[in-house]
């Protein structure tokens, strides 16, 4: 998980935005629309980042397709210190 967190959050093009998104999810689970508004990003961008985070086991989806809410996984909660270390530098 450590290595995945480092690569997905700091080694990739969308990394910095994914750090912000992951923090927002941890702060309070919300749906994609609300994250788009909170982070001032495109809805499709948010959807893309959510997919990547889900693919890597960092975020899970709860509820139906429409208005589904996104939450952090236990794995990520377990390694939240690493996320904190990474996000120290992002706004």
């Amino acid at each position: 998980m450590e290595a995945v967190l480092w690569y997905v959050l700091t080694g990739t093009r969308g990394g910095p935005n994914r750090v912000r998104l992951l923090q927002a999810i941890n702060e309070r689970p919300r749906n994609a629309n609300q994250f788009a508004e909170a982070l001032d990003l495109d809805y499709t961008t948010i959807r893309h980042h959510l997919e990547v985070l889900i693919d890597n086991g960092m975020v899970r989806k709860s509820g139906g397709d429409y208005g589904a809410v996104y939450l952090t996984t236990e794995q990520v909660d377990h390694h939240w210190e690493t996320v904190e270390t990474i996000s120290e530098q992002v706004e």
Partner: protein
Amino acid sequence: MAPLQADPGIWPTVARVSVTLNALLLLALGALWARNYWQFRSKHTLGLFVFSLLLLAENVLALYYYMADPTLATWFATAVPAIAWRAMMLLHVLETVALVFLTWVSWD
């Protein structure tokens, strides 16, 4: 003057195109990791950035040897037989495939 070797065929061209592609992919990856390093200041992004720089240097040097170095370029163009070109070309093409995959996973 020694007689020219048999024409090495397409392999020198494939090798040069492949090395050029490697350099371009590494420039893109290097820019991405430099930007992320600027933001995160972590040793991980620094490592990725330095790695891309050194591999970029390797490819730029190869291109220089093949095309511009006063001694080596002539030698590569006239005296290197097809079997040697084919062997070197394969190394460059494998690196291109590796870099395409790395770019693919890093670009999202």
